């Protein structure tokens, strides 16, 4: 059997193993459950609030946007964080020592992260169906849009997440990235319509995939009349596709170069130096 193909299959297997480990680890389960509960709480609080200018529930709108946020946050911040941590603890060096191990490792991470995203999107959506009214889940178009936004969202965020994870020098500094993404969420119209922000913030928000992931999910799950409160009074499917495809192209172009550079730099002494630094810092 071809070694590259073996490594790809091993990677998929690795992804499944790590996903199963997460789903059976009390610590991971608690973390996911608590954050899901917090978001659901926020949405429930806003259930009776209205989207400005309409009679539609702000909570339901939030639910749709949060699906987009799940993709963006996990694809960017979580993946980057895991890469930075596993570079520090020597997991990547182990992968490098094995033939085609890096390929297997990265495919594994993509599978695990995608799995987490699928589970969180499905979990949020199912909870939402019980708690919120007004989600347009009865039409085929809803699911079609949801699926292409989800898949294109993965393609747009995972390579960028991997690049960010390779660039940050330590797990601690990658923690900063979570803050940055948090700030980005605030200006991406996830919890409140972006049109109520100053113009310049709207432009910044629209430059990143998070806004478009939220918009895409809203376009899938909310009634067509809600498009009226968006920028340009439209769901802007073409622009959504264009921006996400653009990020995908940039990510896929840069990722091989950046990841190869990172892999080349991994050595026993760099891992040992990082360990020293972490232990010294306590």
């Amino acid at each position, binding site marked *: 059997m071809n070694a590259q193909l073996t490594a790809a299959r091993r990677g998929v297997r690795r992804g499944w193993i790590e996903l199963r480990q997460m789903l059976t680890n009390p610590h991971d389960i608690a973390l996911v459950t608590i954050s899901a509960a917090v978001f659901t709480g926020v949405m429930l609080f806003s259930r009776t609030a209205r989207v400005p200018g309409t009679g539609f529930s702000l909570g339901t709108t939030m639910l749709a946007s949060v699906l987009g946020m799940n993709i963006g946050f996990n694809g960017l911040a979580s993946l980057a964080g895991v890469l930075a941590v596993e570079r520090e603890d020597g997991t990547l060096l182990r992968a490098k020592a094995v*033939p085609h191990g890096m390929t297997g490792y990265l495919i594994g991470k993509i599978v695990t992260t995608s799995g987490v995203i699928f589970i969180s999107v499905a979990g949020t959506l199912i909870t939402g169906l019980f708690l919120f009214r007004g989600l347009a889940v009865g039409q085929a178009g809803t699911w079609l849009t949801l699926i292409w936004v989800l898949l294109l969202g993965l393609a747009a965020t995972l390579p960028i997440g991997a690049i960010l994870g390779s660039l940050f020098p330590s797990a601690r500094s990658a923690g900063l990235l979570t803050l940055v993404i948090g700030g980005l969420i605030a200006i991406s119209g996830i919890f409140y319509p972006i049109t109520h922000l100053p113009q310049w913030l709207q432009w910044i928000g629209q430059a990143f995939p998070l806004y478009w992931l939220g918009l895409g999910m809203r376009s899938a799950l909310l009634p067509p009349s809600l498009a009226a409160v968006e920028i340009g009074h439209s769901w802007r499917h073409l622009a959504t596709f264009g921006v996400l495809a653009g990020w995908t192209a940039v990510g896929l172009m840069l990722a091989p170069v950046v990841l190869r550079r990172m892999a080349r730099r991994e050595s026993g002494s760099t891992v040992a130096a990082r360990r020293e630094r972490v232990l010294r810092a306590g």
Partner: protein
Amino acid sequence: MLGVDPAHGGEAWRARLGVVLQSWRDHAKWQVRELLAHLGSYYAPYSEPGRRRPWDVDELIAAVGLTEHARTKVRRLSGGQRRRLDVAIGIVGRPELLFLDEPTAGFDPEARRDFHDLVHRLADQDEATIVLTTHDLDEAERLADRILILAGGQIIADGSADELSGRMSTQAEVRWSRDGQRFVHPADEPTRFVRDLFRQYGESIEDLEVRRASLEDTYMALVREFESGAGADRVARPFSVVAR
């Protein structure tokens, strides 16, 4: 290394190498057997006649003495068990050339003995070339066919343990007791020294013990010589090809 510049070594070349890393806390959630089976599976396409890759996972776990812990999560292993897992990961691909960086640091005497048996087995049955760095000279003497001593970044000695001690005029140590009193005496020529001893005291000599210079003595002598500058002109040649 193995005829290839490490900077340009491909994946097939990598499959023939094993490196035992000083692990820290990677793969904490994995079970021992799960991890070894997974990492080993990457080597399957690189099997060669007479060298089936990877190593059978249960056999390997038994070889490093982790059978009881096959289902234990890596983070629950003790320090010594973790080191043995590191060794197992290093050799799971049945390497032709294996690097061990202070493999027995922190081992208890029994684990150390087991590990030495494993290294002998790898070298003899698997015909692996093993490059081992250690501060434990006893270990080097027991395991190595060829010993290189590094001081100040330079190779100051190169040879088998016997060759090294032969090259240095290190003294043997003679111990004996006479009339209930213990004596210790260094001797350049222990045989002659002992003969003289018997001639002088005859039957009253008891508990005779002659200790030849150990590698440790040789090492100390070599390093002392190097540090005093006397060894500077006889620094051994730099590394050429280590692997066979």
